[in-house]
């Protein structure tokens, strides 16, 4: 008889940090025993040694029960996911218009995208791009039939990319259907092209239809598919979790080399859960070589007095050492960068943002792991502007990725069923309503009654306000909003009751505009942001 292991190890080897979690089965179910993270490059075995020593010191009986012995740690079963650095895709097209379309599709993938068209680059520059060692793949596509702005240069581009593919046998190429059959392509590649034939794949032509975009996105994601990739595994876990909890779940993740937004809903009885996800390299906390747009995007969320150059310096150092400077002002800078990344992710995923507010929003990523819970809730409220009520939770042990590497959904679900209570830390709930008070001076717009544990507390609602209400972690409650005029809270209404749940940050009521409107003048903007962040950050140790 094969005996089930008493402990297993989950490793999330991220691009910035490595997290190790120890799961044990002291009785008849798995539990999260502990977790530890360190900068990327630190050996997961060293982290496990320290973690196991802490468990043995803190609870020797538990360590014995899960058979945690110093010499046996290497032999423990492991669930491991990893984050590979983002690879670069050169998007080549015959016109600015076609390149812009292709770039917008490729931006919704984990590829880092560099574009070039015959209107912006000469053939030598485009050849240079395709031959660059850091470019892993080239995407060349056009309309079918080609548009009037494309026809003149399609043969040139087919020849250019064919020559690059011939010179670089490792280069992956995605070709639109209008290109593959061109003589220039066939002649440039030659009769016996080097490298694997699988590296050259067909993609759909550029078209106005959504199916073409999704088809091309699917092809591009297929080129970098990795069963151990943390972000791909995250999607699997979220789908299983939605099915298990019978709730609609959204995950937003910001990492070193990209970000993810995934929405999963439980399936009907007998059916699989559904999930939609977008992973984008533009969702990175700080993209490599941050340009002025990135710097300005972060500056827009800061309350400090850094100028553009100094902010650029700080962001470059944050990119180089994403694990460092996580306390004090560094924590605020990190969260400003995370807000900017969340805003970029939200802008790239309008179809997910248009869905009703999920029952549960999970915030994932090392940049959120160490800041106060209220600051995380506020960051989500600032950037994911969608009316409704949602509970927010975090995955501090970073288990979502490793669990997603379990291929069998039944096995994955069984493990999740055991540790669902340990997996997520409740941050709080968010109620977001809009349309209250056309002017700022309208004052009181209604009240909120929070019923919890047999008692009811009342809160006067003021137009445009942002308020944290106390609600203990895990405490279920009903929030009833009675409004003087019709507002939007998921739907247009004057009275609505929503179920909420407490968390470390309590309940955040947000009646600000959608989209969030901030003053253009920098000093006023900072003043507004300071007032909001004062609600979320401890004032005694700035």
């Amino acid at each position: 008889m094969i005996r089930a292991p008493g402990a297993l190890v989950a490793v999330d080897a991220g691009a910035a940090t490595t997290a190790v979690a120890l799961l044990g089965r002291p009785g008849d179910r798995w539990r999260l025993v502990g977790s530890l993270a360190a900068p990327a490059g630190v050996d997961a075995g060293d982290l496990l040694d320290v973690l196991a020593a802490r468990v043995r010191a803190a609870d020797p009986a538990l360590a014995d029960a899960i058979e945690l012995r110093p010499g046996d740690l290497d032999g423990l079963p492991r669930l491991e996911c990893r984050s590979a650095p983002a690879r670069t895709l050169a998007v080549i097209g015959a016109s600015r218009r076609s390149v812009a379309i292709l770039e917008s599709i490729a931006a919704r993938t984990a590829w880092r995208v560099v574009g070039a068209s015959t209107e912006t680059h000469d053939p030598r520059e485009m050849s240079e791009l395709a031959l660059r060692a850091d470019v892993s793949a080239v995407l060349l596509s056009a309309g079918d039939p080609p548009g009037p702005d494309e026809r003149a240069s399609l043969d040139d581009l087919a020849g250019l990319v064919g020559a690059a593919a011939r010179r670089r046998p490792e280069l992956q190429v995605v070709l639109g259907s209008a290109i593959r059959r061109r003589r220039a392509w066939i002649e440039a590649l030659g009769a016996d092209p080097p490298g694997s034939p699988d590296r050259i794949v067909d993609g759909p032509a550029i078209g106005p239809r959504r199916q073409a975009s999704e088809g091309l996105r699917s092809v591009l994601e297929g080129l970098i598919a990795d069963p151990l990739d943390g972000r791909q595994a995250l999607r699997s876990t979220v789908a299983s979790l939605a099915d298990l909890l019978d709730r609609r779940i959204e995950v937003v993740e910001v990492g070193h080399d990209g970000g993810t937004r995934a929405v999963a809903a439980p399936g009907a009885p007998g059916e699989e859960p559904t999930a939609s996800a977008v992973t984008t390299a533009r969702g990175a906390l700080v993209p490599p070589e941050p340009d002025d747009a990135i710097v300005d995007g972060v500056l827009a969320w800061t309350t400090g007095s850094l100028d553009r150059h100094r902010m650029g310096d700080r962001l470059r150092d944050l990119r180089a050492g994403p694990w460092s400077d996580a306390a004090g002002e560094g924590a605020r800078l990190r969260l400003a960068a995370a807000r900017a990344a969340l805003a970029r992710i939200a802008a790239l995923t309008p179809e997910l943002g248009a869905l009703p507010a999920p029952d549960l929003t999970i915030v994932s990523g090392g940049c959120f792991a160490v800041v106060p819970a209220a600051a995380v809730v506020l960051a989500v409220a600032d950037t994911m502007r969608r009316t409704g009520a949602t509970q927010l939770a975090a995955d501090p042990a970073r288990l979502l990725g490793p669990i997603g590497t379990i291929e069998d959904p039944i096995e994955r679900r069984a493990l999740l069923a055991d540790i669902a209570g340990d997996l997520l830390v409740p941050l709080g709930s968010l109620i977001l309503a809009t349309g209250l008070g056309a002017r700022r001076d309208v004052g009181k717009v209604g009240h909120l009654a929070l019923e919890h544990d047999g008692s009811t507390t009342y809160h006067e609602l003021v137009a445009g306000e942002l308020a944290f209400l106390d609600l203990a972690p895990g405490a279920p409650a009903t929030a009833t909003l009675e409004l003087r005029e019709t507002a939007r809270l998921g739907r247009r209404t004057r009275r609505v009751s929503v179920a909420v749940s407490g968390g470390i940050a309590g309940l955040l009521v947000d009646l600000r505009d959608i989209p969030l409107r901030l003053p253009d003048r920098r000093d006023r903007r900072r003043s507004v942001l300071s007032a909001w962040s004062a609600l979320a950050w401890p004032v005694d140790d700035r």
Partner: protein
Amino acid sequence: MSVIRDLPPGADPDVAAADGSVALPGGLSLVAARRVVIGPVDATFALRPGDRALVAHGEAVVRGAPLADRLRDPRTEVVAGPLDAEAAIPGREWTAPPSRRHGDAAPERGELLFQSGGRWRIGTGDQREPLEAPFAGIVREVRPGSAIGLRSPARAILGREVLAGPASGRLEVIAPRDGEVRAPEINVGGAGAILVVGAHIDAEAITRARAVGVRGIVVASLGVKERRDVLASERRGQAAVHGLPPFAILVLDGAVRHPIATPVMAVLERVAGHPVAIVADPPCLVIDDPGMELPAPEPDLVRVLAGPLAGAEGRWAGLAGPHRFPGGVVLEAGYVRFAGRPALAVPLGDLERFT
């Protein structure tokens, strides 16, 4: 040899080992390690289409030997292409047929890019400049239009990034590790040298260094503003008729000002007066003397990368466990003793050690 030993949770790191043995507290492996010196060196020099490689795979080159002719004004031209079908391969060099008339504006030679409509596009230009080997080595790869790789048994100090380059020269230390060099401190005595300038250098000093013939700068940090100035100056130099001599800046740490780490400074001081080179890929300072004995870093020395103690160095005193830091942030921390003072808890992520 020191024994690495785990410190029991909650133990006071200042308490000496009970058995009196020389022991280092454990947990140091959870601190990010930085290699001070790497070797051997596999450097890659970028080429662009139209550049002409002058070396072949496996060839031995000495310092200063020409590796390639680089185009300073690259452009695309359309030509009939080679008459010989065997030579009509992208990446091959194309030379104009000798029968052409003298004074023709058409290019004399270039690199075949691709064929379209029966004619070839080539990468070519009128002005070339040599790419010289900044250190001796063996050519490990030549990819026309893309890169030349050079391998050397030499060792190198890794940095964060290199601007411009490559360049070579003798190393001179003109500032302490936490110093800052200003323009008046750069003089013609530095011509042909690579200068170690400490923690920071301003844009004016960089301009002056370039003007007096300095070949390179090694600095701990370089801000975005100075970085932009250097890159703009490099572009102007490329566009000028006569170009500029090789020049490179090696940034060891990042953008925010820090002193040079002590173990790195010790190696730089040891190498001072000897020939070195700055290359961009990997970003490093190549020490062109494989036999030179270099000081090894002390294993328990750690440096603070960020926060109020940024740049400070101390001795590792063991893991401190989760600690609350300013901003309401709870982080895994380690104890560090600075200059013999009682140990302080510093976030693990803010520390680096040296190997």
